[in-house]
């Protein structure tokens, strides 16, 4: 059962496309399993549709349709296959079509796999931690969007299980602990790019408490 949902404000931001792509993906994964939030997001998407329909048209150039028609036979790119290490998990459709990078183990019990290139964009990645693993306390810069794909974790704000959405902001410092409900897999997208500490270093730092 889903216990933690995005706020209506976040769903409106999603519908308007005001979030970064990674956060859009996290919300889309939540929506796939949550009828209540889907209804809320659909409401605002309908508002977008109404404005699109009603907007004063801006004339296209004369040859626009001809140029467009010439492109219809272009081959579409084939979505990448999911990596084998995800085969035992149930992966929501929005995530299934994404290109997922190689996983990197931080400890034998924890790995992460990035979704986006590290070019200063907000970071989006999968994090896996075995049952009963505890991450050392760490802070955040900006908002961080999380969708729990499998298992569950707890921190000072509550327990988050499969299908749940979690939002942390810059003010929260937490020590997520994977419960004994099995291994935990999360999709996480951080709004603020980490400039001083690389992602592996941050996770290692979170795990070991080491600062460098």
């Amino acid at each position, binding site marked *: 059962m889903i216990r933690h949902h995005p706020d*209506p404000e976040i769903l*409106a931001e999603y*519908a*308007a*496309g*005001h*979030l*970064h*792509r*990674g956060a*859009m*993906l996290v919300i*889309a994964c939540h929506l*796939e399993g949550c*009828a209540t939030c*889907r*209804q809320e*997001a*659909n*409401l*605002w*998407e*309908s*508002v*977008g*549709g*109404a*404005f*699109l*329909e*009603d*907007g*004063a*048209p*801006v*004339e*296209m*150039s004369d040859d*626009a*349709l001809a140029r*467009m*028609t010439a*492109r*219809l036979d*272009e081959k*579409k*790119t084939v*979505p990448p296959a999911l990596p084998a290490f995800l085969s035992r998990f149930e992966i929501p*459709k*929005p995530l299934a*079509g*994404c*290109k997922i990078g190689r996983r990197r183990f931080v400890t034998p019990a924890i790995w992460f796999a990035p*979704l*986006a*290139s590290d*070019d*200063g*964009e907000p970071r*989006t990645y999968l994090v896996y931690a075995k049952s009963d693993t505890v991450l050392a306390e760490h802070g955040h810069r900006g908002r961080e969007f999380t969708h729990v794909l499998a298992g569950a974790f707890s921190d000072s704000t509550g327990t988050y299980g499969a299908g749940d959405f979690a939002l942390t902001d810059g003010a929260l410092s937490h020590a997520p602990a994977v419960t004994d409900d099995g291994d935990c897999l999360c999709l996480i997208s951080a709004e603020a790019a980490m400039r001083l500490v690389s992602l592996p270093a941050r996770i290692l730092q979170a795990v070991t408490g080491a600062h460098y």
Partner: protein
Amino acid sequence: VGIYLSGWGGYVTDWSDCIIAIAASRDRQAFASLFGHFAPRLKSFFVRSGAAPGLAEDLAQETLLMVWRKAALFDPVRAQASTWIFTLARNLRIDAKRRERDPQAVAEFFESVVEPIPSDYLLSAERDALVRRALTQLPVEQAEAIRLSFYEDRPHSEIAGLLGLPLGTVKSRVRLAMARLRLLVEDKQ
């Protein structure tokens, strides 16, 4: 097939049929009709979102190319054509704004984020009709606030400048307008 909506330009053609025809038989004539209707509206959407006319036209074409390619994913019971097309355009806008900030950026990882999201309690046609009616019932300045912030993606500070209002007033007006719109739609369900 049409739904009469006073204040929203009279009869609205069921563009869903065009998308279904594209999915079923790669119907280029249906695509041309859809293009004729939506391309200028999409261009308007991107121009209002701050894109230069040339870029706006490219993005309008990009959106319709996605309609052509993803037509099979479209389910008219679950999303109206204009709403579905809006979600495609909205995602392209995110990528365009990102490229504007960082011309080297590639969006390939999130290529497939855009999928129609199934709705549950209301048929899409009913919901869209309710939303449109609710928009006409909102005070004009509230509908305008939603259009500027939600649809045109303008920061509250910019809206404040456009409307000659203090920032705080813009923020509360947007919040109020959205709450009121939701109430209007919920009341009708």
